[in-house]
């Protein structure tokens, strides 16, 4: 073992790391918010929507859940231009993550919706509430409380999975790592540091999600 650790070799690149980290955080937050909105609509359509729409959502969910994320990403970034739809790296990365989380969260939220007792829906309907009002005020509120832990885990998975977007040159944390080690040839140090940053990011995200959960997603 003659390899000498040289972490100082990273110092000149700290701005690249910071920029990559910031990109990963923003990408994760935005795609989480939009992805869960997609999942909520998808789950609502699957359980309360017309048959054709429920079927359509089902196809979407199965398609995404049974193909690799990187292939979905490549399809959007390299495939769609063939149809005349050319997206920037950042837009393609965002879109791929939204579509991916949308599918997984559709399934998670659907499980929560189906766990709400039918009687609660009947009670809401009997109080002259419309189906949409029942869904919003009674069903989804309870569904989210039930599936919040599962959804939190999925969000962490999506954050970690976002490293893949470096493959289409979206300037995230992993992209920065690849760039730095190609300059200073310090692959061990660079990936060790970046792995630690992801670890801290995951722990912080988990904590933030728990605080949000305690504050907003509760059942008496």
């Amino acid at each position: 073992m003659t390899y000498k650790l040289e972490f100082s070799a990273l110092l000149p690149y700290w701005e690249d790391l910071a920029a990559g980290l910031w990109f990963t955080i923003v990408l994760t937050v935005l795609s989480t918010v939009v992805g869960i909105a997609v999942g909520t609509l998808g789950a609502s359509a699957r359980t309360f929507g017309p048959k054709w729409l429920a079927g359509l959502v089902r196809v979407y969910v199965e398609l995404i859940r049974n193909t690799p994320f990187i292939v979905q990403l490549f399809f959007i970034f390299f495939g769609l231009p063939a149809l005349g739809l050319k997206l920037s790296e950042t837009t393609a990365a965002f879109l791929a993550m939204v579509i991916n989380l949308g599918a997984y969260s559709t399934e998670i939220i659907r499980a929560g919706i189906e766990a709400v007792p039918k009687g609660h829906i009947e009670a809401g309907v009997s109080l002259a509430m419309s189906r949409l009002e029942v869904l919003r005020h009674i069903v989804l509120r309870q569904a989210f409380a039930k599936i919040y832990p599962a959804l939190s885990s999925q969000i962490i998975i999506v954050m970690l999975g976002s490293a893949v977007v470096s493959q289409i040159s979206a300037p995230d944390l992993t992209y920065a790592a690849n760039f730095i080690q190609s300059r200073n040839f310090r692959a061990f140090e660079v990936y060790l540091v970046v792995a630690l940053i992801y670890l801290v990011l995951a722990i912080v995200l988990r904590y933030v999600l728990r605080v949000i959960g305690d504050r907003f997603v509760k059942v008496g």
Partner: protein
Amino acid sequence: MSLVSIRDVRKSYGTVEVLKGVSLEVAKGDVVAIIGRSGSGKSTLLRCINGLETYQFGAILADGIEVGGIHANMRELRRHVGMVFQQFNLFPHLTAAENVMLAPTVVNKTPKKEARAIAAEVLAKVGLSEKMDAYPSQLSGGQQQRVAIARSLAMRPKVLLCDEITSALDPELVNEVLRVVEQLAKEGMTLILVTHEMRFARDVGTNLVFMHHGKVHETGKPKDVFAAPQTPELQQFVGGNG
């Protein structure tokens, strides 16, 4: 004129006919107790009145609106026809007061402050002023059912449907719920109750309906019907229930 008018209603689940031509008139202020064996169609009939179940033949008019009619405004109908369930069905993520306030604020667009005043009033009526901010999980079964009654009352219904509302309660909690219903009856609320509480049906009811095999088998003033049941089926049913 009847507040609720049920005319020759028939309903089938697949090939099984559960309502075989039921007719019933309910006037304002009536307290109608529907009794009968399980499977006789009494709960189904009740659920048809506010459109939770559909029926295939006949007609039900509630407050002048034909239930399930093509042009029926079911939302408008349900504002006037309240329902209380066997399983309470309180919303667990909301406090007692919030359970009561939900429909007034969402459906009637009542301002929050006013809705809270309504909640305070109806919860006092069912004797639960102290429990405004308690969650359902912190309440006993009897208290939960009383909140459910208050929740219906907050919409100021013209008729209240009660579907075996004491059947899921421990015996010692039944009376606190029945007392509330009795008080409502005294105040002139129109009530249609599916019940197994024979004594309550006799003492509080103004009309008794005995259902058997999907039909109204016998009907009349509760005291008369209980004193001298005409059909052998009711004789057996009343005898069996002591």
